[in-house]
Protein backbone atom coordinates (compact mmCIF):
# COMPACT_ATOMS: atom_id res chain seq x y z
CA UNK A 1 0.00 0.00 0.00
CA UNK A 2 2.69 2.39 1.04
CA UNK A 3 4.67 1.39 -2.03
CA UNK A 4 1.69 2.01 -4.25
CA UNK A 5 1.37 5.58 -3.06
CA UNK A 6 5.04 6.02 -3.69
CA UNK A 7 4.74 4.56 -7.17
CA UNK A 8 1.89 6.87 -8.04
CA UNK A 9 3.73 9.88 -6.74
CA UNK A 10 6.85 8.88 -8.65
CA UNK A 11 4.85 8.40 -11.83
CA UNK A 12 3.29 11.82 -11.33
CA UNK A 13 6.66 13.43 -10.78
CA UNK A 14 8.01 11.63 -13.85
CA UNK A 15 5.23 12.94 -16.10
CA UNK A 16 5.70 16.48 -14.79
CA UNK A 17 9.44 16.35 -15.41
CA UNK A 18 9.13 14.75 -18.83
CA UNK A 19 6.40 17.18 -19.83
CA UNK A 20 8.35 20.24 -18.80
CA UNK A 21 11.57 18.97 -20.33
CA UNK A 22 10.09 18.08 -23.70
CA UNK A 23 8.08 21.30 -23.93
CA UNK A 24 11.10 23.44 -23.18
CA UNK A 25 13.43 21.47 -25.29
CA UNK A 26 12.11 22.01 -28.83
CA UNK A 27 13.55 25.28 -30.00
CA UNK A 28 11.74 26.56 -33.06
CA UNK A 29 14.92 28.14 -34.34
CA UNK A 30 16.68 24.80 -34.85
CA UNK A 31 15.47 22.12 -37.21
CA UNK A 32 15.93 19.39 -34.58
CA UNK A 33 17.92 16.19 -34.41
CA UNK A 34 18.93 14.44 -37.57
CA UNK A 35 19.69 10.80 -38.14
CA UNK A 36 21.91 9.83 -41.06
CA UNK A 37 22.34 13.41 -42.32
CA UNK A 38 24.43 12.14 -45.24
CA UNK A 39 21.23 10.65 -46.64
CA UNK A 40 19.24 13.80 -46.01
CA UNK A 41 21.52 16.48 -47.33
CA UNK A 42 22.18 16.59 -51.06
CA UNK A 43 25.67 15.91 -52.31
CA UNK A 44 25.01 17.98 -55.41
CA UNK A 45 24.52 21.70 -54.88
CA UNK A 46 21.02 23.15 -54.73
CA UNK A 47 20.61 26.32 -56.78
CA UNK A 48 20.10 28.46 -53.67
CA UNK A 49 23.14 27.14 -51.80
CA UNK A 50 26.43 28.92 -51.28
CA UNK A 51 29.19 27.42 -53.38
CA UNK A 52 32.89 27.89 -52.91
CA UNK A 53 33.61 26.58 -56.42
CA UNK A 54 32.52 29.85 -58.00
CA UNK A 55 34.09 33.25 -57.63
CA UNK A 56 30.97 34.94 -56.35
CA UNK A 57 30.24 32.07 -53.96
CA UNK A 58 26.83 31.20 -55.41
CA UNK A 59 25.60 28.03 -57.07
CA UNK A 60 23.13 29.77 -59.36
CA UNK A 61 25.22 31.32 -62.11
CA UNK A 62 24.24 33.50 -65.03
CA UNK A 63 24.60 31.91 -68.48
CA UNK A 64 27.96 32.60 -70.10
CA UNK A 65 27.86 35.78 -72.15
CA UNK A 66 26.75 35.10 -75.70
CA UNK A 67 25.01 31.82 -74.88
CA UNK A 68 21.32 31.07 -74.52
CA UNK A 69 19.48 28.21 -72.81
CA UNK A 70 17.65 25.72 -75.05
CA UNK A 71 14.20 27.00 -75.94
CA UNK A 72 15.10 30.59 -75.11
CA UNK A 73 13.99 33.19 -77.61
CA UNK A 74 15.49 36.61 -77.52
CA UNK A 75 12.95 39.40 -77.45
CA UNK A 76 14.24 41.48 -80.32
CA UNK A 77 12.71 44.80 -79.32
CA UNK A 78 14.52 47.31 -77.16
CA UNK A 79 13.25 48.78 -73.93
CA UNK A 80 12.52 52.20 -75.40
CA UNK A 81 9.65 54.16 -76.86
CA UNK A 82 10.77 53.13 -80.35
CA UNK A 83 11.02 49.47 -79.37
CA UNK A 84 7.57 49.72 -77.82
CA UNK A 85 6.03 51.24 -80.94
CA UNK A 86 7.81 48.71 -83.16
CA UNK A 87 6.70 45.74 -81.05
CA UNK A 88 3.18 47.17 -81.04
CA UNK A 89 3.12 47.35 -84.82
CA UNK A 90 4.82 44.05 -85.65
CA UNK A 91 4.04 41.43 -83.02
CA UNK A 92 0.94 39.26 -83.19
CA UNK A 93 -0.24 36.99 -80.39
CA UNK A 94 0.37 33.35 -81.36
CA UNK A 95 -2.77 32.47 -79.39
CA UNK A 96 -4.87 35.15 -81.14
CA UNK A 97 -8.46 34.05 -81.54
CA UNK A 98 -8.20 31.27 -78.97
CA UNK A 99 -11.21 31.61 -76.72
CA UNK A 100 -10.98 28.41 -74.72
CA UNK A 101 -7.88 26.88 -73.15
CA UNK A 102 -5.38 29.69 -73.68
CA UNK A 103 -7.89 32.28 -72.53
CA UNK A 104 -8.67 30.29 -69.39
CA UNK A 105 -4.94 29.94 -68.71
CA UNK A 106 -4.56 33.64 -69.36
CA UNK A 107 -7.28 34.44 -66.86
CA UNK A 108 -5.72 32.35 -64.12
CA UNK A 109 -2.26 33.75 -64.88
CA UNK A 110 -3.64 37.29 -64.89
CA UNK A 111 -5.36 36.72 -61.55
CA UNK A 112 -2.15 35.39 -60.06
CA UNK A 113 0.37 37.78 -61.50
CA UNK A 114 -1.46 41.03 -62.28
CA UNK A 115 -4.69 41.38 -60.34
CA UNK A 116 -3.27 42.56 -57.02
CA UNK A 117 -2.41 45.86 -58.73
CA UNK A 118 -4.52 46.00 -61.89
CA UNK A 119 -7.64 44.57 -60.22
CA UNK A 120 -9.70 41.56 -61.18
CA UNK A 121 -11.45 43.60 -63.87
CA UNK A 122 -8.35 45.48 -64.97
CA UNK A 123 -9.65 48.74 -63.58
CA UNK A 124 -6.51 49.57 -61.65
CA UNK A 125 -8.11 48.84 -58.28
CA UNK A 126 -6.33 45.73 -56.96
CA UNK A 127 -5.87 44.97 -53.26
CA UNK A 128 -2.56 46.84 -52.98
CA UNK A 129 -4.08 49.91 -54.63
CA UNK A 130 -7.22 49.68 -52.46
CA UNK A 131 -4.98 49.52 -49.38
CA UNK A 132 -3.30 52.73 -50.51
CA UNK A 133 0.13 51.11 -50.70
CA UNK A 134 0.75 51.87 -54.36
CA UNK A 135 -0.48 54.52 -56.83
CA UNK A 136 -3.16 53.18 -59.19
CA UNK A 137 -2.27 52.05 -62.71
CA UNK A 138 -4.62 53.26 -65.47
CA UNK A 139 -7.74 51.21 -66.12
CA UNK A 140 -7.55 48.95 -69.19
CA UNK A 141 -11.03 49.94 -70.28
CA UNK A 142 -11.22 53.66 -69.50
CA UNK A 143 -7.68 54.90 -68.81
CA UNK A 144 -5.05 56.50 -70.97
CA UNK A 145 -1.60 55.11 -71.57
CA UNK A 146 1.33 57.23 -70.46
CA UNK A 147 2.86 56.42 -73.84
CA UNK A 148 -0.08 57.83 -75.75
CA UNK A 149 -3.48 56.56 -76.74
CA UNK A 150 -6.23 54.90 -74.77
CA UNK A 151 -5.44 51.77 -72.78
CA UNK A 152 -8.24 49.91 -74.50
CA UNK A 153 -6.52 50.42 -77.87
CA UNK A 154 -3.21 48.82 -76.81
CA UNK A 155 -2.13 46.17 -79.28
CA UNK A 156 -0.72 42.67 -78.64
CA UNK A 157 2.88 43.76 -79.00
CA UNK A 158 2.53 46.82 -76.78
CA UNK A 159 1.04 44.79 -73.91
CA UNK A 160 3.68 42.09 -74.37
CA UNK A 161 6.45 44.71 -74.42
CA UNK A 162 5.08 46.22 -71.19
CA UNK A 163 4.92 42.88 -69.36
CA UNK A 164 8.46 42.08 -70.50
CA UNK A 165 10.15 45.38 -69.68
CA UNK A 166 7.69 47.14 -67.37
CA UNK A 167 6.88 50.81 -67.65
CA UNK A 168 6.98 53.70 -65.17
CA UNK A 169 6.33 52.16 -61.74
CA UNK A 170 5.56 48.71 -63.09
CA UNK A 171 8.64 46.51 -62.97
CA UNK A 172 9.73 44.04 -65.65
CA UNK A 173 8.04 40.63 -65.25
CA UNK A 174 10.16 38.65 -67.69
CA UNK A 175 11.82 36.59 -64.97
CA UNK A 176 8.53 35.44 -63.45
CA UNK A 177 6.38 34.91 -66.53
CA UNK A 178 7.50 32.85 -69.53
CA UNK A 179 6.90 34.20 -73.07
CA UNK A 180 4.09 31.72 -73.62
CA UNK A 181 2.42 32.73 -70.38
CA UNK A 182 2.82 36.39 -71.31
CA UNK A 183 0.97 35.84 -74.57
CA UNK A 184 -1.84 34.10 -72.72
CA UNK A 185 -2.08 37.06 -70.35
CA UNK A 186 -2.17 39.42 -73.34
CA UNK A 187 -5.13 37.44 -74.62
CA UNK A 188 -7.00 37.93 -71.38
CA UNK A 189 -6.04 41.62 -71.08
CA UNK A 190 -7.72 42.18 -74.43
CA UNK A 191 -10.89 40.82 -72.87
CA UNK A 192 -10.56 43.19 -69.93
CA UNK A 193 -10.06 46.15 -72.28
CA UNK A 194 -13.70 45.75 -73.26
CA UNK A 195 -15.09 45.47 -69.73
CA UNK A 196 -17.89 47.94 -69.20
Amino acid at each position, binding site marked *: MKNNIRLVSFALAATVI*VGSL*SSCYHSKKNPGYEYAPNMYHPIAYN*PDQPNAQFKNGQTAQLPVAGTAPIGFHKFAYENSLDGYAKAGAELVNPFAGDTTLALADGESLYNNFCSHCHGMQGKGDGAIIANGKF*PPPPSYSTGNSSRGGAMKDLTDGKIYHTITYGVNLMGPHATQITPEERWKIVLYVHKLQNVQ
Partner: protein
Amino acid sequence: MGFHLSITKKLSVRTILMLTSFVLTFTSVKAQDAKVGEGIFKANCTSCHAIDRQVIGPALKDVDKRWADKGLLKKFIVASQEVIKSGDKYAADLFQKYNGTVMPNHNLSDAELDSLLAYIKTEGDKPAEVAAAPAAGAAAGTDGTLVNNYTIGGLILLIVVLLVVMVVLNRVNGSLDRLIRMKNGEALENFVKVVKEKISNFKWMLRNKKKVFWFLLLFMGAFSVWGWDQMWNINVNTGYQPTQPIKFSHEIHAGLNQVNCQYCHSGAFKSKNASIPSANVCMNCHNYVQATEKYNGEISPEIKKIYTALDYNPETRTYGTNTKPIEWIRVHNLPDFAYFNHSQHTTVAGIACQTCHGPVQAMQEVSQFAPLTMVWCINCHKATEVKSKGNAYYDKLLATHEEIKKGKKVTAAMLGGLECVKCHY
Protein backbone atom coordinates in the same frame (compact mmCIF):
# COMPACT_ATOMS: atom_id res chain seq x y z
CA MET B 1 -28.26 113.02 -42.64
CA GLY B 2 -30.29 110.00 -41.78
CA PHE B 3 -30.91 109.48 -45.48
CA HIS B 4 -27.27 109.89 -46.21
CA LEU B 5 -26.31 107.33 -43.62
CA SER B 6 -28.74 104.81 -44.89
CA ILE B 7 -27.35 105.14 -48.39
CA THR B 8 -23.80 104.58 -47.24
CA LYS B 9 -25.02 101.71 -45.13
CA LYS B 10 -26.85 100.23 -48.07
CA LEU B 11 -23.84 100.68 -50.28
CA SER B 12 -21.46 99.14 -47.84
CA VAL B 13 -23.80 96.22 -47.22
CA ARG B 14 -24.00 95.72 -50.93
CA THR B 15 -20.27 95.86 -51.36
CA ILE B 16 -19.78 93.40 -48.55
CA LEU B 17 -22.37 91.08 -50.03
CA MET B 18 -20.81 91.38 -53.44
CA LEU B 19 -17.35 90.86 -52.10
CA THR B 20 -18.33 87.82 -50.09
CA SER B 21 -20.21 86.30 -52.98
CA PHE B 22 -17.21 86.99 -55.19
CA VAL B 23 -14.82 85.41 -52.73
CA LEU B 24 -17.19 82.49 -52.26
CA THR B 25 -17.51 81.84 -55.97
CA PHE B 26 -13.78 82.27 -56.37
CA THR B 27 -12.89 79.75 -53.66
CA SER B 28 -15.56 77.33 -54.79
CA VAL B 29 -14.21 77.56 -58.32
CA LYS B 30 -10.77 76.83 -56.93
CA ALA B 31 -12.05 73.86 -54.97
CA GLN B 32 -13.93 72.69 -58.04
CA ASP B 33 -10.73 73.08 -60.06
CA ALA B 34 -8.74 71.08 -57.57
CA LYS B 35 -11.34 68.33 -57.62
CA VAL B 36 -11.23 68.07 -61.41
CA GLY B 37 -7.46 68.28 -61.15
CA GLU B 38 -7.39 65.36 -58.73
CA GLY B 39 -9.02 63.17 -61.35
CA ILE B 40 -6.56 64.29 -64.00
CA PHE B 41 -3.65 63.80 -61.61
CA LYS B 42 -4.68 60.27 -60.70
CA ALA B 43 -5.34 59.31 -64.31
CA ASN B 44 -2.15 60.73 -65.79
CA CYS B 45 0.54 61.44 -63.24
CA THR B 46 0.61 58.93 -60.37
CA SER B 47 2.50 56.24 -62.22
CA CYS B 48 5.57 58.50 -62.13
CA HIS B 49 4.89 61.34 -59.69
CA ALA B 50 3.82 61.89 -56.11
CA ILE B 51 3.13 65.23 -54.41
CA ASP B 52 5.69 65.14 -51.63
CA ARG B 53 8.19 62.48 -52.63
CA GLN B 54 10.34 61.74 -55.58
CA VAL B 55 9.21 58.68 -57.50
CA ILE B 56 10.32 58.27 -61.10
CA GLY B 57 9.96 61.97 -61.63
CA PRO B 58 10.42 64.74 -59.06
CA ALA B 59 8.01 65.50 -56.20
CA LEU B 60 5.42 67.93 -57.51
CA LYS B 61 5.06 70.04 -54.38
CA ASP B 62 5.81 73.70 -55.19
CA VAL B 63 6.26 72.87 -58.85
CA ASP B 64 4.65 76.21 -59.73
CA LYS B 65 7.26 78.00 -57.62
CA ARG B 66 10.14 76.16 -59.27
CA TRP B 67 9.08 77.13 -62.77
CA ALA B 68 9.46 80.84 -63.35
CA ASP B 69 7.22 80.78 -66.42
CA LYS B 70 3.89 79.09 -65.77
CA GLY B 71 3.18 78.89 -69.51
CA LEU B 72 6.39 77.00 -70.04
CA LEU B 73 5.50 74.57 -67.23
CA LYS B 74 2.20 73.84 -68.95
CA LYS B 75 4.00 73.37 -72.22
CA PHE B 76 6.42 71.00 -70.49
CA ILE B 77 3.55 68.88 -69.22
CA VAL B 78 2.03 68.71 -72.68
CA ALA B 79 5.25 68.09 -74.60
CA SER B 80 8.34 67.97 -72.40
CA GLN B 81 10.81 67.10 -75.13
CA GLU B 82 9.93 70.22 -77.13
CA VAL B 83 10.66 72.46 -74.15
CA ILE B 84 13.95 70.65 -73.52
CA LYS B 85 14.95 70.97 -77.16
CA SER B 86 13.98 74.64 -77.21
CA GLY B 87 17.01 75.20 -74.95
CA ASP B 88 15.34 76.12 -71.68
CA LYS B 89 18.07 75.62 -69.11
CA TYR B 90 15.84 74.55 -66.19
CA ALA B 91 14.08 71.95 -68.33
CA ALA B 92 17.35 70.62 -69.70
CA ASP B 93 18.87 70.36 -66.21
CA LEU B 94 15.78 68.54 -64.97
CA PHE B 95 16.04 66.06 -67.83
CA GLN B 96 19.71 65.47 -66.98
CA LYS B 97 19.03 65.08 -63.26
CA TYR B 98 16.50 62.31 -63.85
CA ASN B 99 18.82 60.21 -66.03
CA GLY B 100 17.23 61.36 -69.28
CA THR B 101 13.89 59.71 -68.50
CA VAL B 102 11.47 60.97 -71.09
CA MET B 103 8.21 62.29 -69.70
CA PRO B 104 5.55 61.26 -72.20
CA ASN B 105 3.33 63.85 -73.83
CA HIS B 106 -0.02 64.59 -72.23
CA ASN B 107 -2.87 65.71 -74.37
CA LEU B 108 -4.45 68.11 -71.87
CA SER B 109 -6.32 71.35 -72.57
CA ASP B 110 -5.33 74.63 -70.97
CA ALA B 111 -8.31 74.48 -68.60
CA GLU B 112 -7.40 70.94 -67.58
CA LEU B 113 -3.81 72.00 -66.95
CA ASP B 114 -5.08 74.83 -64.75
CA SER B 115 -7.18 72.44 -62.66
CA LEU B 116 -4.27 70.03 -62.45
CA LEU B 117 -1.93 72.74 -61.19
CA ALA B 118 -4.62 73.96 -58.79
CA TYR B 119 -4.86 70.46 -57.38
CA ILE B 120 -1.09 70.14 -57.04
CA LYS B 121 -0.99 73.53 -55.32
CA THR B 122 -3.74 72.71 -52.80
CA GLU B 123 -2.22 69.30 -52.11
CA GLY B 124 1.29 70.75 -51.93
CA ASP B 125 0.18 73.38 -49.42
CA LYS B 126 -1.54 70.72 -47.33
CA PRO B 127 1.31 68.28 -46.67
CA ALA B 128 2.58 70.15 -43.60
CA GLU B 129 -0.42 68.81 -41.69
CA VAL B 130 -0.94 65.67 -43.77
CA ALA B 131 2.67 64.64 -43.31
CA ALA B 132 2.63 65.70 -39.69
CA ALA B 133 -0.39 63.60 -38.83
CA PRO B 134 1.03 60.20 -39.76
CA ALA B 135 4.43 61.26 -38.45
CA ALA B 136 2.85 62.14 -35.14
CA GLY B 137 0.98 58.86 -35.20
CA ALA B 138 4.16 56.98 -35.99
CA ALA B 139 6.00 58.86 -33.27
CA ALA B 140 3.26 58.02 -30.81
CA GLY B 141 3.43 54.41 -31.97
CA THR B 142 7.17 54.18 -31.48
CA ASP B 143 6.82 56.04 -28.19
CA GLY B 144 4.26 53.50 -27.12
CA THR B 145 6.49 50.57 -27.97
CA LEU B 146 9.50 52.34 -26.47
CA VAL B 147 7.64 52.86 -23.20
CA ASN B 148 6.68 49.20 -23.27
CA ASN B 149 10.21 48.06 -23.98
CA TYR B 150 11.60 50.37 -21.35
CA THR B 151 9.13 49.22 -18.73
CA ILE B 152 9.94 45.57 -19.41
CA GLY B 153 13.67 46.31 -19.54
CA GLY B 154 13.43 48.41 -16.40
CA LEU B 155 11.59 45.69 -14.53
CA ILE B 156 14.15 43.09 -15.53
CA LEU B 157 16.94 45.46 -14.53
CA LEU B 158 15.24 46.08 -11.20
CA ILE B 159 14.92 42.36 -10.52
CA VAL B 160 18.56 41.79 -11.44
CA VAL B 161 19.69 44.67 -9.20
CA LEU B 162 17.58 43.38 -6.32
CA LEU B 163 19.04 39.88 -6.77
CA VAL B 164 22.55 41.31 -6.75
CA VAL B 165 21.76 43.31 -3.61
CA MET B 166 20.39 40.14 -2.00
CA VAL B 167 23.51 38.14 -2.81
CA VAL B 168 25.83 40.90 -1.66
CA LEU B 169 23.93 41.44 1.58
CA ASN B 170 23.93 37.72 2.20
CA ARG B 171 27.67 37.54 1.78
CA VAL B 172 28.21 40.58 3.96
CA ASN B 173 26.01 38.96 6.56
CA GLY B 174 28.01 35.73 6.30
CA SER B 175 31.38 37.40 6.64
CA LEU B 176 30.15 39.50 9.56
CA ASP B 177 28.91 36.32 11.18
CA ARG B 178 32.27 34.65 10.64
CA LEU B 179 34.07 37.68 12.06
CA ILE B 180 31.99 37.57 15.18
CA ARG B 181 32.57 33.86 15.54
CA MET B 182 36.32 34.29 15.01
CA LYS B 183 36.33 36.99 17.65
CA ASN B 184 34.61 34.58 19.96
CA GLY B 185 37.49 32.14 19.49
CA GLU B 186 35.83 29.74 17.12
CA ALA B 187 38.65 29.42 14.66
CA LEU B 188 39.27 27.56 11.43
CA GLU B 189 38.84 24.05 12.87
CA ASN B 190 35.23 24.92 13.41
CA PHE B 191 34.84 25.51 9.68
CA VAL B 192 36.53 22.17 8.89
CA LYS B 193 34.10 20.47 11.19
CA VAL B 194 31.15 21.97 9.34
CA VAL B 195 32.50 20.70 6.03
CA LYS B 196 33.03 17.21 7.45
CA GLU B 197 29.49 17.21 8.71
CA LYS B 198 28.24 18.08 5.27
CA ILE B 199 30.20 15.22 3.69
CA SER B 200 28.87 12.79 6.24
CA ASN B 201 25.41 13.73 5.06
CA PHE B 202 26.04 11.58 2.01
CA LYS B 203 26.11 8.57 4.26
CA TRP B 204 22.37 9.07 4.33
CA MET B 205 22.30 7.49 0.93
CA LEU B 206 23.90 4.30 2.18
CA ARG B 207 21.44 4.15 5.00
CA ASN B 208 18.44 4.67 2.71
CA LYS B 209 19.21 2.43 -0.27
CA LYS B 210 15.57 1.91 -1.05
CA LYS B 211 14.85 5.58 -1.38
CA VAL B 212 17.90 6.09 -3.53
CA PHE B 213 16.82 3.19 -5.73
CA TRP B 214 13.39 4.69 -6.29
CA PHE B 215 14.90 8.07 -6.94
CA LEU B 216 17.25 6.67 -9.57
CA LEU B 217 14.42 4.66 -11.11
CA LEU B 218 12.36 7.81 -11.38
CA PHE B 219 15.15 9.58 -13.25
CA MET B 220 15.81 6.62 -15.52
CA GLY B 221 12.10 6.44 -16.32
CA ALA B 222 11.88 10.15 -16.96
CA PHE B 223 14.89 10.18 -19.22
CA SER B 224 13.78 7.16 -21.21
CA VAL B 225 10.38 8.76 -21.86
CA TRP B 226 12.09 11.97 -22.81
CA GLY B 227 14.54 10.08 -25.01
CA TRP B 228 11.68 8.19 -26.67
CA ASP B 229 10.00 11.51 -27.40
CA GLN B 230 13.22 12.86 -28.87
CA MET B 231 13.75 9.76 -31.01
CA TRP B 232 10.31 10.12 -32.54
CA ASN B 233 11.14 13.69 -33.46
CA ILE B 234 14.39 12.91 -35.21
CA ASN B 235 14.16 14.25 -38.75
CA VAL B 236 10.68 15.61 -38.01
CA ASN B 237 10.88 19.37 -37.98
CA THR B 238 7.29 20.51 -37.59
CA GLY B 239 7.19 24.05 -36.22
CA TYR B 240 10.71 24.87 -37.42
CA GLN B 241 10.82 28.65 -37.65
CA PRO B 242 14.28 29.96 -38.41
CA THR B 243 15.09 33.66 -38.13
CA GLN B 244 15.29 34.99 -41.67
CA PRO B 245 17.78 37.63 -42.79
CA ILE B 246 14.93 40.03 -43.60
CA LYS B 247 11.86 40.32 -41.39
CA PHE B 248 9.59 39.50 -44.28
CA SER B 249 5.97 39.10 -43.23
CA HIS B 250 3.79 36.80 -45.33
CA GLU B 251 0.87 38.17 -43.33
CA ILE B 252 1.34 41.64 -44.86
CA HIS B 253 2.21 40.50 -48.37
CA ALA B 254 -0.03 37.50 -48.96
CA GLY B 255 -2.70 38.29 -46.36
CA LEU B 256 -3.31 42.01 -46.23
CA ASN B 257 -2.20 42.91 -49.74
CA GLN B 258 -3.38 39.66 -51.29
CA VAL B 259 -0.32 39.13 -53.44
CA ASN B 260 -0.79 35.64 -54.84
CA CYS B 261 1.72 32.97 -53.80
CA GLN B 262 2.61 32.42 -57.43
CA TYR B 263 3.63 36.03 -57.98
CA CYS B 264 6.81 35.50 -55.96
CA HIS B 265 7.11 31.70 -55.95
CA SER B 266 6.50 31.52 -59.69
CA GLY B 267 8.22 28.16 -59.99
CA ALA B 268 5.62 26.36 -57.89
CA PHE B 269 3.24 25.91 -60.80
CA LYS B 270 5.72 25.01 -63.50
CA SER B 271 8.69 23.29 -61.94
CA LYS B 272 9.95 20.97 -59.26
CA ASN B 273 10.93 23.84 -56.98
CA ALA B 274 8.63 26.56 -55.69
CA SER B 275 11.70 28.82 -55.92
CA ILE B 276 12.60 31.72 -53.69
CA PRO B 277 12.06 34.97 -55.59
CA SER B 278 15.14 36.83 -56.73
CA ALA B 279 15.38 40.38 -55.45
CA ASN B 280 14.20 41.88 -58.74
CA VAL B 281 10.74 40.55 -57.88
CA CYS B 282 10.85 42.46 -54.59
CA MET B 283 11.77 45.58 -56.53
CA ASN B 284 8.61 45.36 -58.65
CA CYS B 285 6.83 46.86 -55.65
CA HIS B 286 9.63 48.10 -53.41
CA ASN B 287 11.00 50.52 -55.96
CA TYR B 288 8.04 52.54 -54.70
CA VAL B 289 6.91 51.02 -51.39
CA GLN B 290 9.41 52.09 -48.74
CA ALA B 291 7.14 52.28 -45.67
CA THR B 292 8.60 55.71 -44.88
CA GLU B 293 5.41 56.67 -43.02
CA LYS B 294 6.25 54.10 -40.35
CA TYR B 295 9.84 55.22 -39.86
CA ASN B 296 9.53 59.00 -39.60
CA GLY B 297 10.30 59.56 -43.26
CA GLU B 298 13.22 57.14 -43.37
CA ILE B 299 13.17 54.05 -45.59
CA SER B 300 12.23 50.95 -43.61
CA PRO B 301 15.45 49.22 -42.44
CA GLU B 302 14.12 45.87 -43.69
CA ILE B 303 13.39 47.26 -47.18
CA LYS B 304 16.85 48.86 -47.11
CA LYS B 305 18.28 45.34 -46.88
CA ILE B 306 16.91 44.63 -50.38
CA TYR B 307 18.53 47.81 -51.63
CA THR B 308 21.85 46.82 -50.03
CA ALA B 309 21.66 43.35 -51.57
CA LEU B 310 21.06 44.87 -55.00
CA ASP B 311 23.41 47.82 -54.45
CA TYR B 312 20.48 50.05 -55.36
CA ASN B 313 20.52 53.75 -54.68
CA PRO B 314 16.97 54.95 -53.97
CA GLU B 315 17.96 58.61 -54.43
CA THR B 316 19.21 58.22 -57.98
CA ARG B 317 17.20 55.05 -58.68
CA THR B 318 20.25 53.32 -60.12
CA TYR B 319 21.80 49.90 -59.50
CA GLY B 320 25.46 49.36 -58.68
CA THR B 321 27.62 46.31 -59.22
CA ASN B 322 28.41 45.41 -55.60
CA THR B 323 25.54 42.96 -55.20
CA LYS B 324 25.29 40.19 -52.66
CA PRO B 325 22.62 37.53 -52.27
CA ILE B 326 20.03 37.59 -49.50
CA GLU B 327 20.66 34.35 -47.64
CA TRP B 328 17.15 33.16 -46.88
CA ILE B 329 16.94 30.05 -44.73
CA ARG B 330 14.93 27.22 -46.19
CA VAL B 331 12.09 26.22 -43.87
CA HIS B 332 10.67 23.16 -45.64
CA ASN B 333 13.38 20.60 -46.25
CA LEU B 334 12.78 17.23 -47.81
CA PRO B 335 15.48 14.59 -47.56
CA ASP B 336 17.60 14.24 -50.65
CA PHE B 337 16.36 10.66 -51.23
CA ALA B 338 12.74 11.79 -51.64
CA TYR B 339 11.67 13.21 -54.99
CA PHE B 340 9.01 15.88 -54.80
CA ASN B 341 7.65 17.97 -57.64
CA HIS B 342 5.61 21.10 -56.92
CA SER B 343 4.02 21.44 -60.36
CA GLN B 344 2.63 17.90 -60.22
CA HIS B 345 0.76 18.78 -57.03
CA THR B 346 -0.31 22.34 -57.91
CA THR B 347 -0.94 22.34 -61.65
CA VAL B 348 -1.99 18.72 -62.22
CA ALA B 349 -3.71 17.87 -58.94
CA GLY B 350 -4.87 21.41 -58.18
CA ILE B 351 -3.86 21.24 -54.53
CA ALA B 352 -3.78 24.59 -52.73
CA CYS B 353 -0.44 25.72 -51.33
CA GLN B 354 -2.01 25.92 -47.85
CA THR B 355 -2.76 22.19 -47.80
CA CYS B 356 0.89 21.47 -47.09
CA HIS B 357 2.23 24.86 -46.04
CA GLY B 358 -0.58 25.90 -43.71
CA PRO B 359 -2.12 29.36 -43.44
CA VAL B 360 1.01 31.15 -44.68
CA GLN B 361 -1.08 34.27 -45.40
CA ALA B 362 -1.58 34.58 -41.63
CA MET B 363 2.02 33.89 -40.65
CA GLN B 364 4.21 36.79 -39.73
CA GLU B 365 7.17 34.47 -39.62
CA VAL B 366 6.87 31.27 -41.62
CA SER B 367 7.15 27.99 -39.77
CA GLN B 368 6.95 24.42 -40.98
CA PHE B 369 3.30 23.38 -40.90
CA ALA B 370 3.24 19.76 -42.06
CA PRO B 371 5.58 17.13 -40.59
CA LEU B 372 6.82 16.24 -44.13
CA THR B 373 7.30 12.64 -43.06
CA MET B 374 6.73 9.64 -45.28
CA VAL B 375 3.61 8.60 -43.38
CA TRP B 376 2.19 12.07 -43.92
CA CYS B 377 2.78 11.79 -47.69
CA ILE B 378 1.31 8.31 -47.81
CA ASN B 379 -1.80 9.13 -45.82
CA CYS B 380 -2.61 11.98 -48.19
CA HIS B 381 -1.90 9.84 -51.26
CA LYS B 382 -4.23 7.16 -49.88
CA ALA B 383 -7.06 9.61 -49.30
CA THR B 384 -6.80 11.89 -52.33
CA GLU B 385 -8.96 11.03 -55.30
CA VAL B 386 -7.37 11.56 -58.71
CA LYS B 387 -9.19 14.26 -60.65
CA SER B 388 -8.77 12.75 -64.06
CA LYS B 389 -11.83 14.27 -65.71
CA GLY B 390 -11.05 17.31 -67.82
CA ASN B 391 -7.44 17.04 -66.74
CA ALA B 392 -5.18 16.91 -69.78
CA TYR B 393 -2.44 15.25 -67.76
CA TYR B 394 -4.47 12.02 -67.49
CA ASP B 395 -5.90 12.00 -71.04
CA LYS B 396 -3.31 9.58 -72.34
CA LEU B 397 -3.69 7.28 -69.34
CA LEU B 398 -7.47 7.14 -69.70
CA ALA B 399 -7.20 6.59 -73.45
CA THR B 400 -4.78 3.69 -72.87
CA HIS B 401 -7.21 2.13 -70.40
CA GLU B 402 -9.94 2.33 -73.01
CA GLU B 403 -7.66 0.57 -75.49
CA ILE B 404 -6.96 -2.20 -72.99
CA LYS B 405 -10.69 -2.57 -72.32
CA LYS B 406 -11.24 -2.98 -76.06
CA GLY B 407 -8.69 -5.78 -76.01
CA LYS B 408 -6.02 -3.95 -77.98
CA LYS B 409 -2.34 -4.65 -77.45
CA VAL B 410 -0.61 -1.97 -75.39
CA THR B 411 3.19 -1.96 -75.30
CA ALA B 412 5.57 -0.33 -72.87
CA ALA B 413 6.75 1.94 -75.67
CA MET B 414 3.22 3.29 -76.03
CA LEU B 415 3.30 4.32 -72.37
CA GLY B 416 6.49 6.29 -72.79
CA GLY B 417 8.83 3.37 -72.28
CA LEU B 418 11.20 4.69 -74.96
CA GLU B 419 11.90 7.98 -73.21
CA CYS B 420 15.64 8.34 -72.57
CA VAL B 421 15.30 9.40 -68.94
CA LYS B 422 13.33 6.32 -67.98
CA CYS B 423 16.70 4.54 -67.93
CA HIS B 424 19.38 7.21 -68.24
CA TYR B 425 18.76 9.65 -65.40
